[in-house]
């Protein structure tokens, strides 16, 4: 027993609880800091002058337009869907409840490839219009997919599940009692939605929307393919075609400010939600059946959403793959690379996520800092982090070659995604009693034993979920991989993007479908997990 409180053991205790957290924070903060610093100190190069004089304002405005339109579309889609699915009974409701999550498996760039083909002037939709009406290509108006609005349409189609999930959770847990109270006070149902349900769910909806917009601002593949020049696309091009990291870093600064603003909103709203969501009481909601007409409309609406973000684009890509009979013989290498990178990244992110989640549970200023850095990384586009990593590597004169580039890439994955891993692990720990750790210590367990025998096993279910999410996220990741991967480390995402941008959509279709297929399983598991974790549910 003497060893338990020897100086060595005490130092070990401090090391176990603080060191990984500190290290994680430091490692993860570097690319962010490097991107910011290089933006400040890089001289205003010629390329930057050129960008400022011609494009910067337009890039910013385009980004703003895309974000606003995306937000509107996401809200218009997700909130009615969440409401219908939680509060009403209609044909197919149970199925739609989880089908509506599927777009999470489809990366924005994949959906963009498909819609660009579907909605182009020679695509099947416009051809059908011309055949049906006998009009010429210039005699009718057709929405232009290669536009900020088109990009918003595509991004919203893939991102509405974020808001759908948070709104559904809010409707299910927080506002049922309030809604019933409002009804007993004589408020008609529609007014109840406006006056009670929506205000009560607003923090959750705002938090989900902020996440969706972070993703939208970070998108590179879809915007680049559609030729919509957002800040992220501008950044990438400044880096790759002008070779000017300084100009890219300044655009990164604008994106960082945007990310910080979104994160601030998300944080603020989450704090407000916290006080309401503390109750663990949960009641089976009495779903109001919809009459036949409205019921069919509700089903049609939900069906439309699933088709929009998932069904239509994937069927189109599947059709292209089948029609052209592309074998995809050259895809084994990229598949192996994708799996290798995703596995490496997942392993690193899960370990970092565990140390952060455990650290946050213990509390303290360092834990808060770690959390902020991680959340910051998640909000920042991958292209910005990749740029930061490149700048950092250049500062330390590390050559971006071979293993170093892979390390750097995994590092960027960690910066970007660790928070996505820390969340489910934290949630798993939070389900355990708060005093569990103290109880373990009182039972003569050293801090190391406590972590090993109690906290890790408890966190395990969360870690599995985290691993699934991370694996898919890294599999889908495009801009950072594109900027940092060494030669012959093409992932499926990179290969799909390369094929598509070389106008070989037939060749791109197969890797796209492989990415989505790989992403589907985790999304389904997640959906199952969400249904199961609802308090009150056996």
């Amino acid at each position, binding site marked *: 027993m003497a060893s338990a409180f020897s100086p060595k053991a005490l130092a070990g205790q401090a090391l176990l609880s603080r060191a990984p957290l500190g290290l994680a924070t430091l490692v993860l903060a570097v690319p962010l800091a490097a991107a910011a610093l290089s933006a400040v100190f890089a001289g205003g190069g010629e390329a930057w002058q050129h960008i400022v004089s011609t494009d910067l304002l337009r890039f910013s405005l385009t980004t703003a337009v895309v974000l606003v339109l995306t937000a509107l579309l996401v809200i218009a889609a997700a909130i009615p869907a969440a409401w219908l699915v939680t509060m009403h009974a209609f044909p197919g409701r149970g199925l739609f409840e989880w089908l509506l999550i599927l777009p999470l498996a489809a990366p924005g760039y994949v959906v963009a490839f498909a819609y660009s083909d579907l909605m182009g002037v020679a695509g099947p939709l416009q051809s059908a219009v011309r055949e049906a009406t006998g009009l010429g290509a210039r005699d009718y108006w057709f929405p232009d997919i290669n536009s900020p609005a088109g990009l918003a349409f595509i991004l919203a189609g893939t991102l509405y599940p974020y808001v759908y999930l948070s709104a559904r959770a809010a409707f299910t847990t927080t506002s049922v009692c309030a809604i019933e109270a409002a009804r007993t006070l004589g408020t008609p149902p529609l007014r109840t939605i406006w006056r009670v349900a929506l205000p009560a769910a607003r923090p959750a909806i705002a938090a989900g929307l902020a996440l969706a917009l972070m993703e939208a601002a970070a998108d590179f593949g879809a915007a680049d393919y559609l030729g919509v020049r957002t800040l992220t696309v501008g950044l990438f091009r400044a880096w790759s075609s002008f070779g000017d990291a300084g100009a890219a870093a300044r655009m990164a600064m604008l994106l960082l400010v945007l990310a910080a603003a979104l994160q601030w909103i998300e944080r603020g709203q989450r704090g407000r939600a916290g006080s309401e969501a503390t109750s663990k009481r949960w009641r089976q909601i009495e779903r109001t059946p919809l009459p036949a007409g409205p019921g069919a409309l509700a089903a049609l609406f939900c069906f439309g959403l699933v088709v929009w973000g998932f069904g239509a684009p994937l069927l189109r890509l599947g059709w292209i793959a089948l029609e052209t009979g592309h074998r995809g013989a050259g895809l084994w290498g990229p598949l192996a690379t994708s799996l290798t990178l995703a596995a490496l990244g997942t392993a690193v992110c899960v370990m970092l996520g565990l140390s952060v989640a455990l650290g946050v549970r213990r509390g303290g200023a360092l834990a808060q800092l770690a959390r902020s850095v991680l959340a910051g990384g998640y909000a920042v586009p991958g292209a910005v982090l990749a740029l930061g990593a490149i700048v950092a590597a250049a500062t330390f004169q590390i050559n971006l070659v071979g293993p170093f580039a892979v390390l750097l890439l995994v590092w960027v994955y960690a910066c970007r995604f660790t928070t996505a891993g820390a969340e489910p692990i934290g949630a798993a720990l939070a389900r355990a009693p708060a005093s569990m750790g103290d109880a373990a210590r009182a039972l*003569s367990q050293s801090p190391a034993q406590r972590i090993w025998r109690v906290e890790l096993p408890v966190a395990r279910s969360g870690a599995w979920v985290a691993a699934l999410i991370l694996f898919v996220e890294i599999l889908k990741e495009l801009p950072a991989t594109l900027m940092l991967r060494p030669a012959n480390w093409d992932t499926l995402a990179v290969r799909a993007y390369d094929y598509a941008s070389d106008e070989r959509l037939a060749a791109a279709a197969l890797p796209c479908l492989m990415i989505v297929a790989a992403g589907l399983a985790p999304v389904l598991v997640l959906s199952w997990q969400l249904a199961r974790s609802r308090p009150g549910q056996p």
Partner: protein
Amino acid sequence: MSAPGPQSLIAAGLKKRLGGRLIVDDVDLEIRPNRVTALLGASGAGKSTVLRLLAGLERVDAGTVAIGGALLSRRGYTRPPEARRTGLIFQDFALFPHLTAAENVAFGLAHLGRSARVAKAQDWLERLELSHRADAYPQALSGGEQQRVAIARALAPGPDALLMDEPFAGLDPALREGVADLALSAVAQTGIPTLLVSHDAQSAMERADTLAVMRAGRILQTGTPEEIYDRPVSLEVAEALGPVVTFALGEVPSGLWPGNAPRGLADPVLAARASAFRRVEAAGCRVRVERIARMADGVSATVVHAAAAFKVRLPLEHSPQPGDEIRLELGRRGVFVFAKG
């Protein structure tokens, strides 16, 4: 175990400052073997912090914690909880969700061999009448069962002391009595010094051998429940153990109290337990009954005298009706005079 038998857990001069506020201010406490010591106080009084200091979950800013002559805490030194041999019971039970009831109990027995561990865990589950639930996971157990598992888990390693933080507050009132009796009898068999932190005066008085009343970080009085109930040192202590009616000594309704105030008190206040009032046929003080509320063991009557209204407890058989005019008098027990403030 070299120690001859259970030893007292002693805290002396404990101080703890958290977030700039003095949460625990010079607390002395002796938790003796073979007795249950209850630390009673309203929430925010600093009780739980005292428990965490005793358990080694917090460092002390001043003072010492010791057991049987062995120093556990002083400023700059804290023997970590895992090296203290102190059992802990929490309000939220704190069971490990990934382990069954039996595995939870066996958790602290890592030093034993497998078969000894299983046997000992079974033995403790049996003592708490839980053998049939050995293989259930915490989420399948009721609150009462969970807390019994938590108690078995804390006692199984044979701790030197047991610290319980509001152990029964999270339970359904209907279950509370049974679980508490079973738990405390299991604790009593071990004879180890036991601290029970509670905000419920009734249950603390019922279950504790020694009571310590705490308020704003200080211990106001320590003694047997009877001593404290009958001879509180201050109005605050009196109020901590149950409802009290107070009058400035000059304004006591005439005829209510036959006693005399001790001399030399500045601004004396008469404090009477609500249960110290008696209904009398003659003399006493005339009051009008405003409301009657039925309690488990009598009634609570809101009565008015002149402008003053106060609540008294009366036995069921003497229950008046609202609107009745009755006469009240104070006896000797449960009536105190304190200096104001």
